[in-house]
């Protein structure tokens, strides 16, 4: 069953026809050629497909494209402005916060979203005082908030350092 939908992807309006069964992840990768979001498990169990939809990070593999008509989608590629990389992207490079790079776009989207969430006063399960106004990004907070993104190359230590540096500045 086909449906025509419109999405804004990394700042560009894209109209496409999808099967109702098409996930946002497959719509991006197979229909629009936007391969920045990766498929790691297709079941919400790894975070490689993380993108921002209307400002919130979500697993695009469990999101049906038809259900997101009109949405604003941002992938890691869309964080860069031309050749100018996002500070989180630069920090990932200088801290060597990836190896194979497959989980990386998802990690970076998560990192950017996570800093906003903390700023907005969203707690995490490791937040000591749930009633606090803000949640400073300690290493423990970063690690918990980034745990929805698995990295089998296990660059976690560097990922936390990379984010910490951006969060501090």
């Amino acid at each position, binding site marked *: 069953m086909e449906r025509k939908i419109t999405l804004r992807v990394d700042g560009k309006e894209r109209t496409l026809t999808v099967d109702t*069964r098409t996930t946002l992840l497959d719509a991006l990768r197979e229909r629009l050629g936007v391969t920045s979001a*990766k498929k790691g498990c*297709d079941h919400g169990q790894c975070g490689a497909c993380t993108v921002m939809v209307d400002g919130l990070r979500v697993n695009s593999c469990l999101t049906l494209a038809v259900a997101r008509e009109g949405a604003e989608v941002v992938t890691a590629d869309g964080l860069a402005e031309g050749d100018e990389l996002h500070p989180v992207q630069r920090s*990932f490079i200088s801290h060597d916060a990836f190896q194979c790079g497959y*989980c990386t776009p998802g990690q970076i989207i998560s990192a950017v979203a996570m800093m906003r969430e903390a700023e907005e006063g969203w707690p995490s399960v490791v937040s000591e005082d749930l009633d606090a106004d803000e949640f400073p990004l300690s290493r423990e907070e970063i*690690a918990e908030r980034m745990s929805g*993104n698995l*990295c089998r190359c296990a660059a976690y230590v560097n990922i936390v350092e990379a984010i910490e540096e951006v969060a501090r500045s």
Partner: protein
Amino acid sequence: MNDQPSRRTVIKAGVGALGAAVLPVGADPARASTAVTAVEAAGRPVRGGIGAALKRVEGPLKVRGAATYAYEWPVENPAYLYPLLSTIATGRITGVGTEAALAEPGVLGVLTHLNAPKLASAEPEVVILQSDRVLHHGQIVGAVIAESIETARYAAGLVTFEYAAEPVDVDLRADRDDLRKPQHAQGFGQLPGDLMNGSPADTAVGDFEAGMASAVHQLDETYTTPIQQHNPMEPHAAVATWTDDEITLYCGSQGVTTPQGLLATAFGVEPARLRLVSPYVGGAFGSKDFSALWGTLALMGARLVPGRPVKLMFTRQQMFTLVGHRPASVQRVRLGADARGRLVAIAHDTVQETAKAKQYAEQTVQGSRTMYAAPHRRTTTRIALLDLPVPTIMRGPGESTGMFALESAMDELALKMGMDPIEFRLRNEPETHPESGQPFSSRHLVRCFEEGARRFGWKHRDKKPRARRKDGWLIGTGVAAATYPSPRLPGSTASASVDKDGRYTVRIAASDIGTGSWTTLAQIAAEALGVPLDRVTLHIGDTRYPRASSGGFSSGINSWGTTIYAAARELRAALDKNGGTIPAEGLEVTTAMPDDPNLAKYEFNSFGAQFAEVRVHEDTGEVRVPRLLGVFDIGRVINPLTARSQLLGGMTWGLSMALFEETVVDHRYGNFVNNDLAGYHVAANADVGSIEVHMLDERDPYINPMGSKGAGEVGIIGTAAAIANAVHNATGVRVRDLPITLDKLFR
């Protein structure tokens, strides 16, 4: 597979002298760049050969998601293939129903053993759909090719199979009466022999039984490790196009030369006609080396729809049975020491699982052959042939499980003797390799321990178990040794060329699976050429470049690096001969990996000392690892940034192996029950605390011109034992069966 090409160097005038058609620089679709220079990455000229902490040259591509992994190559009008897996473990397919699937709009074809092309190969890791025989649960029994991913997958569910199932045997026990001495099927570029590294299944020095009987202190314990899964984040994927001239296969692979040969043989085509492209690989860890099922399947699909690209990506669940796994083991370790804590006897007897389809037998006991001096010693390896998929190499194959057993046993015996576990190890440091008697090319294990103990604060440790607690958590520390060989795999050739403008180009069909080859191989080339790094462009990951061994066994630097070094030096020599000036038409040399008489004279191993601090919750038994520290002797460090990442990754793997990883086998059906990332846990970010990595950076005098040993595996070795030893120190509970889950700990 990697038959060594005859040693030769070809020097030709003119860049691309191998033929422009063979080496088209930048001929690939621009979006999918296979060549990046450091200057592009850093935005400025970069100096720095060996030893410089350079950022990954492909970093800017990876952080935007623009590096092209196999499934992402832009192709026109692709068809999609979805594999069908057996739902029994053993038996025969007695009926296939494809009508419903073929009737589904958008379905282009259904492959089963009834219509699949016949393959001229018998390798179970390559061959599929050749008969009605089912040898393990989750074996490929068919595939659907369709216009879209959604249709292919749905139609796959419409294909029906009838089976005549046979009894399933998937029980690994050390007391089975049908255990055998292994005859490892050759593979991985290693030497032929009983075990995967070419060594005999059984070794003995002195008289173990007599030695053990004479020992004052004795230990006899059995350790087990479960089936583990590689689970790289990028699922195994391939995009195949079959035309009358060229057959192209974009596929994530640890090397392109080996699968090119395997697949060309299987499909009966000239290897030169089959092009494999794999510049970026989303992790592999052994699972994208020998096994090439996804390549076979994609090619079969491509033959069904000639001229049309066929895309295949295994699902995460399918990966569990299709790309190999680390075999389970049952290991008995016996140690005997004299009154002064000197080992007199060591025995390591392992029983491990393999498939009925093919013998894979890894050198689990290799660490026990290498680590400690003792006059009387023996190792044995036996295998059980089960109805399971063929196991394969997985990060630190052999030692990662074997050293869990040996280094746990060393801790147990040290405790029994009341001796500090580091002191116990230092007392048993051998002069030469304990079995072969050959010298080590370099062995700085003692320094690793001394340096590690100082940095970790080992002397403040309370060696009494269950002595430290804080806020309901028991605290403990542990230590273990690490070692992994640094082999040089045969079969690599590299070319190095220079154009009239003084730009250097190095080509080799090597791979970067996250190890940093894009950067480190360029650094080696720059050093050997004596030019700044930004003058060097590297090309890897394509069978159009000179053949190379596969990445694995921490062999990349030693194999490809040495070959590149040789090619670069020869180019430099040719230039010098030319009076130091570059001919107008440029210059190119092609060199096979040089022979080295030293290889036969020394034992080449990386070493390390692993320290762990753990917390175990008194009420629930939950284990946390707030601190790991490793000091490593990996020879001269090519790039401290990427080398550190390799070691960090390895140590985190060790943590993951210690606490989480276990494939659950259902003994009734022979299937892997927890076959996804929610069921099979790998370490997440929150599981990892502080990890410190220190590298001695001591040049190895004999291994290769760079003086560098392997770094990819040694980080995982010993980590699980250090954690198990720390858990014992925290709780007084000795866990000998991995993983160390909370149910084994709380009271």
